[in-house]
């Protein structure tokens, strides 16, 4: 049995291909999370500010994206962008869609982190003679980051584990490669699917679980009171 498992991974370039697939998964995740932060943080700050019209527009974007299945967005962008003359690779479409989603979620996390700070915290800083800039620097921002990070990490794992949807627009991510290997090896070895998908399961676990643990660690450490 172990032989059959080993042969699935040692046959041809199977292991190398799986690792390439993992690379694609990691790339899409990293790029999407990074871009989401880059776009979502300013959006969140605008939502937290008194700019009513802008905040409403972002809120509408957020609610729209939230109720939309990621797969629908992937298909919509993948199949229709080229029809209006925008030619993006499937890889770029996936980053675009995940960023649209991630930035929306990120903006809401940032808004919550900034607005949940009690107004008295700022007053207490002012009462010490701190300038407004110092109040932001030493009191508001450090506390906002502490409130923000667990949510951001949680969003990161959610984004990583949603990336297999790119399977459907034919991106050779971990899942797609796994399926291709199963299709070929399954002919000889009826347990190939178990080995391959089990392996993929372990890889996702190995990526997401430490991230999730780290988030819990931070929450415990930064728990305010």
């Amino acid at each position, binding site marked *: 049995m172990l032989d059959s498992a080993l042969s699935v991974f040692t046959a041809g370039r199977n292991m190398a291909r799986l690792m390439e697939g993992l690379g694609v998964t990691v790339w899409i995740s990293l790029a999407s999370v990074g871009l989401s932060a880059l776009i979502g943080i300013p959006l969140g700050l605008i939502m937290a500010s008194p700019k009513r019209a802008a905040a409403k527009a972002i809120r509408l974007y957020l609610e729209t994206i939230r109720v939309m299945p990621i797969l629908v967005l992937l298909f919509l962008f993948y199949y229709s962008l080229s029809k209006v003359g925008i030619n993006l690779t499937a890889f770029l479409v996936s980053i675009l869609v995940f960023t649209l989603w991630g930035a929306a979620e990120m903006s809401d996390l940032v808004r919550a982190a900034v607005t949940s700070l009690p107004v008295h915290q700022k007053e*207490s800083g002012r009462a*010490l*003679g*701190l300038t407004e800039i110092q109040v932001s620097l*030493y009191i508001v921002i450090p506390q906002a980051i502490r409130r923000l990070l667990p949510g951001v990490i949680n969003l990161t794992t959610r984004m990583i584990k949603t990336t297999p949807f790119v399977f459907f627009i034919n991106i050779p991510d971990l899942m797609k490669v796994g399926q291709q290997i199963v299709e070929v090896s399954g002919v000889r070895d009826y347990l190939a699917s178990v080995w391959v998908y089990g392996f993929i399961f372990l890889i996702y676990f190995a990526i997401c679980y430490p991230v999730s643990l780290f988030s819990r660690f931070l929450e415990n450490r*930064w728990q*305010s009171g």
Partner: protein
Amino acid sequence: MEQEILIIRDLQKSFGETPVLNGVSLSVRQGEVLVIIGPSGCGKSTLLRCLNGLEPINSGEIEFDGKIITGAQANWNLVRQKIGMVFQNYELFPHLNVMENILLGPLKVQKRPKAEATEVACGWLERVGLLDRAEAYPRELSGGQKQRVAIVRALAMAPEIMLFDEVTASLDPEMVREVLDVMLSLASQGLTMLIVTHEMGFARAVADKIIFLDGGSIVESAPPDIFFANPSTERARRFLNIFEFDEDKKLGVS
């Protein structure tokens, strides 16, 4: 007589259409302890908050150390270093430990050398019995300990006046005493203090002068012996009766 350090002249303050302070005038001498009492919503907290610029005033003026501190060229960042304030809900910074909370003002605002500021902070912490908690985070402290740290944080700036805004109102009864004791000792040491409180026994013990505020005006202003024994206005008498009644009820239960 000591010099007048703080003079408030005809202070008017309203929130939107609602007037909160209707022409409050009073003066505080160096080393004097004023206790401001009055029913909820009488404007006592607002009065304190106007004194260090947390609330903008509508009209009138405040003179501190011989200078007018209100008006167009008000520099509140400077004034706040000399008029310290302690809040009802402590408002320690949860991401900083006790020592970091205390040193934030001296280091960042007053730019004092760290060694010197730390020494001053340790001295104060020792006085309030919390030197061993210097590394603790606010969440690890009891309410009474938090409030004592908040007092030290304000004192570390070496203010000339301290404002106390109902600093025991959020505390469990058994922790009220430890905070009031610290304030009593500060008063006996000659610190100028303006205290808003509902602790009548404490007011009586600590005050040089009681200010009774009602409906945004000073209704009565008298030394504590006279005010508590024989208030000259009907409104003050009625207000004090409320506490008498509460007192009797507590006695009845225990």
